[in-house]
């Protein structure tokens, strides 16, 4: 009987595995190759304990404090526990003898009610103070305002003060020594709930449809800060990356001036441009200065000003653009850009046009 059971089980487990894995196996066959990304120059890590912005720094300081407190509590409970297991283990000579029964002690129980109460009261004060410290920061007059709109699975950034829209790479000025220029974000969503999380800059805030949330940071060092969407938002939640470029005020001003311009219209790539405008591309993408005014997908006016495509997961090179336009589903399964069924020549012409969008 028991042997029969043993043979019966693996068979069923294998069946179960086949059933739940089958869509995945077929997806893996379809996928061209795993997307890879060479590390972008000056990429920073996502370790929240190396903060480079005031909110993240406050949180890192609070973390060390509470970690210390809970570590002490852990040792205070765990070490005596281990000692008791050794000290009061059953010995041979104890067999059949019951130890003295202790039913409780009011003073002791009162002590370990009041002690923890004091500790959590202190923790509560720390919490309240740090909440208000981070949240009550008033934007200075030179703060940069950005409207962030989360989409399945990319980020849209609108700079209302400068009047342009871009995607996936957020630029932030450093400010001068001693007076950083904070960035204030208004977070909105076009579809489902996302969450904006760049650990070295600030804690996360959810991006919720029908609601405007707020978040601020002030990066203190130049470089690319990384993060990613932190609220599960559907198939490609894993590939909804965040990149924040912190740069000098001058570089920022140059970037803004370039972004504000309409797209260049190079006659050498007119074929690709017409293909872009005649096909469904224009229904979803905007290229300012052309008739392409779609709002569903990233603004491509200055596509080549960005280091990455596909929400930060692929390097923005001609090679990847070719593969992406040919069939985005091989690089980012389930993304909302369909396989347009273009010919190889059409793909090359369109990419010829795209790479002129500096």
């Amino acid at each position: 009987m028991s042997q029969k059971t043993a043979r019966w089980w693996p068979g069923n487990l294998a069946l179960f595995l086949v059933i739940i894995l089958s869509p995945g196996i077929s997806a893996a066959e379809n996928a061209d190759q795993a997307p890879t990304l060479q590390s972008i120059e000056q990429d920073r890590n996502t370790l929240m304990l190396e903060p480079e912005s005031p909110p993240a720094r406050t949180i890192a300081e609070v973390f060390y404090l509470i970690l210390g407190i809970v570590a002490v509590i852990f040792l205070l409970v765990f070490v005596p526990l281990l000692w008791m297991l050794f000290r009061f283990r059953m010995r041979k000579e104890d067999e059949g003898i019951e130890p003295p029964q202790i039913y409780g002690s009011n003073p002791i129980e009162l002590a370990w009610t009041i002690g923890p109460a004091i500790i959590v009261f202190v923790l509560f004060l720390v919490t309240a103070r740090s909440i208000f410290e981070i949240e009550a920061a008033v934007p200075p007059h030179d703060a940069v305002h950005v409207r962030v709109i989360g989409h399945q699975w990319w980020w849209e950034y609108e700079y209302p003060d400068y009047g342009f829209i871009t995607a996936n790479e957020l630029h932030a000025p450093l400010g001068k020594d001693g007076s950083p220029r904070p960035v204030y974000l208004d977070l909105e969503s076009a579809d489902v709930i996302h969450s904006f999380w760049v650990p070295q800059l600030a804690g996360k805030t959810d991006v919720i449809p029908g609601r405007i949330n707020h978040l601020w940071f002030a990066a203190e060092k130049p470089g690319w800060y990384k993060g990613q969407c932190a609220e599960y938002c559907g198939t490609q939640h894993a590939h909804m990356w965040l990149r924040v470029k912190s740069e000098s005020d001058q570089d920022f001003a140059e970037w803004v001036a370039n972004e504000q311009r309409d797209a260049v219209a190079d006659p050498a790539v007119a074929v690709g441009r017409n293909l872009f405008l005649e096909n469904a591309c224009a229904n979803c993408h905007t290229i300012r200065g052309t008739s392409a005014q779609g709002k569903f997908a990233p603004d491509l006016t200055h596509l080549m000003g960005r280091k990455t495509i596909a929400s930060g997961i692929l390097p923005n090179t001609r090679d990847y653009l070719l593969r992406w336009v040919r069939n985005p589903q091989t690089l980012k399964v389930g993304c909302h850009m369909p396989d347009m069924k273009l010919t190889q020549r059409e793909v090359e012409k369109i990419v010829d046009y795209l790479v002129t969008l500096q």
Partner: protein
Amino acid sequence: MATIDSYSQNQLTTTPSLTTRLHAWVASVDHKQIGIMYLLMSLFFMILGGLEAFLIRIQLWSPNSELIGPETFNQLFTMHGTTMIFFVLMPMLSGFANFLVPLMIGARDVAFPRLNALGFWLSFFGGCLLYFTYFGAQGLYGAENAPDVGWFAYAPLTSPAYARGNATDYWILGTMLTGAGTIAFGVNLLATIFTMRAPGMLLTKMPLFVYIFMMDAVLIIIAFPPLTAAQVMLLLDRYAGAHFFDPQTGGSAVLWQHLFWFFGHPEVYILALPAFAITSEVIPVFSRKVIFGYVSMAAATAAIAFISLGVWVHHMFTVGLSDVVDTLFAASTFLIAIPTGIKIFNWTATLYGGRIRLKTPMLFALGFLSMFLIGGLTGIMLAVVPFDWQVSDSYFLIAHFHYVLFGGSLFSLLAGFYYWYPKMTGRMMSERIGILQFLCTFVGFNLLFFPMHISGLLGMPRRIYTYTEPSWVLWNQLSTIGAAVMGIGFLFFFYNLIRSLRHGEPAGDDPWDAWTLEWTVPSPPPAYNFEKTPTVRSRRPLWDLKHPDDPDWEHE
């Protein structure tokens, strides 16, 4: 006369046919059989949920892995979470309560035996319905064959626009059915405890196990109906054009979170209280001491149950509610640490001065105590709102709640298996395999979940099917190794359960020299439980019996 004799002789010597025996279980309204069926159900779903978790860990072994793919991965974590919460931990605690509460209070069955059977079958078929999604949900182009909305199914990801097809409906209906079954269980348990206690067993003289399960039933009755209501609203949204959770037509995505977590947080305590209940029986028996501070343990249980109804917003600190709301809910969350602390201190004090026997139930109870301590302490860290802004929805959070629900609840429930298996089957589980299982489970558990604290601090969000960050690789690989070790531990467990059924040592009525009423009846107990309704005078009736010179009731 002779014919009757030979007839009954025949009946006694031939075992009834398989269908007869199956029928005896399927049609049973006996609380013990229903309890065991609950436990078997939870073990069955534990295999499924565990395999799903293992596949998740295999996918996360290496960076940029496309082994499983995003759609399947998203289904796996949705099914894993839903299965473990609704179809493993819930039936497991229901099983123990069903089997033990009537025995512990000296009753012959629960108050409503047929409602009890209804509750079980609703729960069981709820689980079957959920898994039928793999066969029944396909058919619509682009639709998935299993729910992929996450176990808390945040709106508007569950709206027809983002969750096409019927997979999400299988999730809604499966959990709704099991929720109805759970409410039936809660009502029944409460009625049983209130009305069927043996003479002399006042509410203040119940074993802590029964007291804590009483509070658990109260929480179930309060917390599950809001979930059912929210799920009905979601179905109306999906099929009748209602707009409760659809922000584009004036609904609120945040409303779903409030409704879900108003259930979801008490649910955490619904799963944790049974762990407290089992530990409160196992630690005293294996330390040979009465529980330290019965009254404060009971009061702490009531306090936890009450406060747990007012902390749900701590799942929503990143939603952007006002600072005042966040601060108040941080305060209530801190408050719950105080009664929880009392419990941990009282269990530890029970060990002090005892004669500790490190048998398998005790090992798992001590595993619970230390792992739940870690989970509780990271819980305090998460209540510090700004820190929560960083680690919420990261792997730090995954580590935290697995320390609570696995290191906490499941370790204690495993202690329950080793402790009461002799009572349920009449045979002891193997101590040797049990210790092997404990070592594998304990080491594997820590290897699996402790590194997640670190990958969370390194910025790894939950629910991503693949990653690139080089610094996350090591911690994910440690986790996967831990999962394999723990899987071996569970193989030992299942082997032990099956093997001991035939080859275990006969247990006798009272193998652990324990003190509550279930150990006065034979193992397994007869259908009627007690030949004669027992009379009790204290919380440890068997102690009084064994020590007539120094009975408990003189001290209570």
